[in-house]
């Protein structure tokens, strides 16, 4: 019987059909998905902070409205993804607890600080650009609710990337000081953006099984290469350079050669040693604790009304 179920699961995955919530699935598949989707959801929620930092100081009402909408989208993306984890039997409160106790991770990119307003533009362009590279293939991931959430998210990310690039184009038409600010921001974010695709394939422990289950569709290195190929012409059009002396067009391969990020730094930030790790978690914990009375009051209000309706 178990073999039968496993065979049916394998066949569904191999035929590019989707696994749906109440289908039988291997425990490892369920666990891998919960871990990956939760980590993704946490990244969206923590990702509100670096940009939220600039909402009150946006240089115009237009930029403030855009930034507010973008940060609200990140919250929405987190909620679509938490909703997907719940179809696998995960508990929302449990996931929040694991995040604020540091037992589940989020993308290390959000442990870097946003020092200038140009960072808002560069995050939209490069960080959201890298996220799009990662996420577009996930629209075809084998688990139905995750794939559907990714389709919604990808549609909205396009706005995120374009507003960032437009912001940078505006700054690049400004004073020398503004242009320098953009270049400085690109210099700081380029390597962390490349790290967003995860460690090199040779060191990526989860890739093989995830590819077989079609949870993951491309390897880390494939996606990183694609991102570099996409970003170079955009940098040229903008008039900035990437801080990598090895980056150059390779006629033979038809793509760019480029250097490797500092993987020691990557692991150091993953393990909690980044500039903002503590601050991000402390902020999330405070928001959760400060919001407790709202959750309790709303639940009490709902319970009171239910009693009244029951009595009437």
């Amino acid at each position: 019987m178990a073999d039968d179920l496993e065979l049916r699961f394998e066949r569904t995955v191999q035929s590019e059909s989707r696994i749906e919530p109440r289908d039988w699935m291997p425990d490892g598949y369920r666990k891998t998905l919960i871990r990956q989707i939760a980590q993704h959801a946490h990244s969206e929620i923590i990702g509100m902070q670096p940009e939220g930092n600039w909402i009150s100081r946006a240089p115009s009402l237009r930029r403030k409205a855009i930034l507010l909408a973008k940060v609200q989208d990140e919250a929405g993306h987190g909620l679509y993804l938490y909703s997907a984890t719940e179809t696998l039997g995960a508990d929302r409160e449990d996931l929040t607890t694991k995040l604020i106790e540091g037992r589940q991770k989020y993308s290390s990119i959000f442990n870097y600080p946003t020092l200038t307003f140009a960072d808002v533009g560069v995050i939209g362009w490069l960080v959201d650009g890298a996220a799009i590279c990662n996420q577009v293939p996930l629209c075809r991931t084998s688990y139905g609710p995750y794939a559907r959430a990714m389709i919604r998210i990808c549609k909205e990310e396009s706005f995120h990337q374009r507003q960032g690039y437009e912001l940078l184009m505006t700054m690049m038409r400004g004073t020398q000081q503004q242009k320098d600010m953009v270049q400085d921001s690109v210099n700081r974010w380029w390597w962390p953006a490349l790290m967003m695709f995860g460690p090199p394939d040779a060191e990526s422990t989860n890739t093989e099984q995830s590819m077989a289950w079609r949870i993951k569709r491309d390897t880390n290195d494939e996606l990183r290469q694609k991102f570099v190929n996409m970003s170079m012409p955009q940098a040229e059009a903008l008039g900035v350079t990437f801080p990598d002396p090895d980056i150059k067009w390779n006629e033979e391969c038809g793509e760019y050669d480029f250097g490797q990020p500092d993987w020691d730094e990557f692991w150091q930030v993953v393990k909690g040693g980044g500039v903002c790790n503590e601050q991000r978690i402390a902020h999330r914990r405070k928001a959760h604790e400060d919001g407790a009375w709202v959750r309790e009051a709303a639940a009490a209000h709902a319970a009171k009304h239910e009693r009244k309706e029951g009595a009437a």
Partner: protein
Amino acid sequence: MSTSWPLWEVFVRGKRGLNHVHVGSLHAPDAEMALRNARDVYTRRNEGVSIWVVPATEITASSPDEKDPFFAPAGDKVYRHPTFYAIPEDVPHL
């Protein structure tokens, strides 16, 4: 007191003339708040003209384990499809 709000499934009608379609779920203390949260989470870009929210516990679903026998009655009734019937090609409007 438990602060965990119940789960609601959300259905959105994209525009007039279309069915409501399931789009996901959310937590809310009551139906009214579920509707408001659904508006903010699932229709930030005019994706809907009408929303239904249903307590997740109120949904009864067919079991995936018995999906083959459950849908078997329709399996062997090919005569329910118009293509089952051979009609000469020169007969119009059929």
